[in-house]
């Protein structure tokens, strides 16, 4: 009898703990972003109909998300470590232009990509020197590098304002589909999964979160704050370079304003997904990816319904404020 009672009590206990776990998940940033995503899909289904989830529409949405997702996954490590890199969009635009120009001048695409990757790393190092070595406020410092890079992008594109080039192998790679999904996006999903694993289950991930969460505690625990931040900024620069190459694969050319809008999109997306540009140590690559998907879904619905595309930004701005508000209610950074 006693055994039965205790058994029932234990199942009861496990049930409540399971309910608590589900409640906690729904209450977590990942939970609320997942709910938002489901809501967007439902709105799409009711408003547009089943064509919202057809292969061709999914293909359009996921193609549009490729470059932002690549940038977000790489630069979110910097956010996690407590530094913001606003130069990624301009870096992608400049690197796309340089890559295209090099290939136009009969460079081997692989060596051109290598050069561009080096440029990305140099951008990351310059950002690290100003932010980590001199202790500059990262938002303002990278706003400066953004301005320098976009200026150089204008110069590199010359008076024509654009560079056009077709790299057959790259074009083929960027436009191959696996089922309804572009191959690139499938690879990026793998990258996101790896990033989630690194952030949540490795020592490196713990260190990065510790550095972003509490700099002094991390130092006391023997973690090198500057090494982690320099590494994350270099990764962010490298992400900008790769995104530039991907742009050329997708678009077959660069213009002098390419990438100027994507930086706000990326940061709005990852902030909707649970990252913070004010405080490091919070956020998850999966949440960031879902945040970008929410924006892509809203953009798609507005495009299909042929509503003025400016309304996308209005909705994204409102979503961003709501997301940080709920994060604050949940115990995030209150500004007082």
């Amino acid at each position, binding site marked *: 009898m006693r055994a039965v009672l205790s058994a029932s009590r234990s199942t009861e206990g496990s049930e409540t703990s399971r309910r608590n776990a589900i409640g906690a998940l729904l209450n977590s940033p990942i939970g609320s972003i997942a709910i938002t995503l489901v809501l967007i899909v439902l709105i799409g289904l009711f408003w547009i109909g089943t064509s919202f989830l057809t292969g061709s529409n999914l293909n359009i949405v996921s193609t549009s998300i490729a470059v932002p997702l690549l940038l977000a996954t790489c630069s979110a490590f910097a956010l996690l470590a407590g530094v913001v890199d606003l130069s990624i969009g301009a870096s992608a635009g400049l690197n796309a232009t340089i890559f295209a120009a090099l290939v136009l001048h009969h460079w081997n695409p692989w060596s051109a990509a290598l050069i561009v990757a080096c440029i990305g790393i140099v951008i990351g190092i310059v950002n690290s020197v*100003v*932010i980590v070595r*001199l*202790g*500059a*406020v990262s*938002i*303002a*410092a990278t*706003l*400066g*590098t*953004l*301005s*320098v*890079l*976009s*200026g*150089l992008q*204008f*110069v590199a594109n*010359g*008076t024509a304002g654009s560079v056009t080039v077709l790299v057959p192998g790259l074009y083929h790679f960027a436009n191959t589909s696996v089922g309804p999904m572009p191959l690139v996006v499938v690879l990026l999903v793998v990258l996101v999964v790896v990033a989630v694993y690194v952030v949540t289950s490795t020592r490196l991930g713990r260190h990065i979160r510790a550095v972003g969460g509490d700099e002094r505690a991390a130092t006391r625990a023997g973690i090198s704050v500057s090494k982690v931040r320099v590494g994350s900024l270099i990764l962010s620069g490298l992400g900008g370079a790769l995104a530039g190459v991907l742009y050329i694969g997708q678009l077959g050319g660069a213009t002098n304003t390419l990438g100027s809008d994507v930086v*706000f999109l990326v*940061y*709005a997306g990852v*902030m909707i997904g649970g990252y913070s*540009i*004010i405080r490091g140590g919070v956020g998850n690559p999966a949440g960031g990816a879902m945040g970008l998907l929410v924006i892509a879904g809203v953009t798609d619905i507005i495009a299909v319904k042929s509503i*003025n595309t*400016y*309304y*996308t*930004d*209005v909705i*994204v*701005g*409102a979503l*961003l*404020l709501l997301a*940080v*508000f709920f994060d*604050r209610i949940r115990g995030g*950074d*209150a*500004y*007082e």
Partner: protein
Amino acid sequence: MRQSQFARYRQTSTSAGTVADPADQTVPGLAKEARVLPEGVATAGILLVVWILLVAVSAIDKANFLSRETLLSVTFTMAVLGVLTVGESLVTISGGVLDLSIPTALILPAWVMATLLVDGINVWLTILVGLLVGIAWGGFNAAIIVFGKLNPIIVTLGTNFAGFAILGIYVQNAVIPVHSGLATFGKGYSLFGLPNVFWLMVVVVALAGYLLPRTRLGRRTIAVGGNPQAAKMRGISLRKTRFGVFMTAGLMAGIAAVLFAASQQTFVSADGTNYLFLAIAATLVAGISLSGGSGHLWVTFLSVGLLSTIPTSLAFFGVPTLWQTVPAGVILVLAVGLDGYRRLRSAR
């Protein structure tokens, strides 16, 4: 220890208890002012030297640089940017780090004024409405920041995202009627043959710089920016101060919009985007620290002047206009680096 500190605090507060406003007797704001003064003077000196050097080098190399055209081009650029920078600097000094909503804050009142003028509304009434729209925008930002307890950077990023998109829908091509009083004022010149809008900017910067350490709101702004918790302990309302700061910044954007509308015959919403970067650069180049609580508004006059002279100077040296944003970006990176370096050094 803790108790004795508290007792001391109570003692000082009761000894000066007759003073109505606690901020009036907060020495920290003024003490900080006094401490920072040499640094402010040093920044001003460096800026002045660099500015004079830039003008001198340009003038020696290209004799016709020192012309009326150059002077007008530089002073017109300085007018709008100067007033916007005052607003941005106030937010930075108050500890709000940065106001990213400058493009919307500038274009919204300018567009409202253009619409009213086209409808034939009295010019003074139009200007009044424009200023009120600016203040309302600042109040809107402040309401979200204060009641949502959210960081100003994120809030102004979000409101600018939404606000600028709405402007993109409605502002196709705003026109300021040529015969309106505003356009005549904007085209006019006064003292030393310099534009009216320039002199108005000088008055605004001078007045704001004079009033900041000498008014209750100004001193509270400095105190809250320096140490919000200490300011709160002294009985300064953080909420009221933040509303005051952001509405004043909105008023500055409104004044800038008046100057912008007066000197522009037509404009589109995208014309506002460049001012965000320039206002942030001018604030930081003036040595106003992003950690808040210190800074001299008068110095912004020099940083705005320097940043406005660079494009004209480059054009004279035959540098293609494509290069324009590069030097300002380099200067911004250097200024932010110097700001960080100073703070690292003072922390040690």
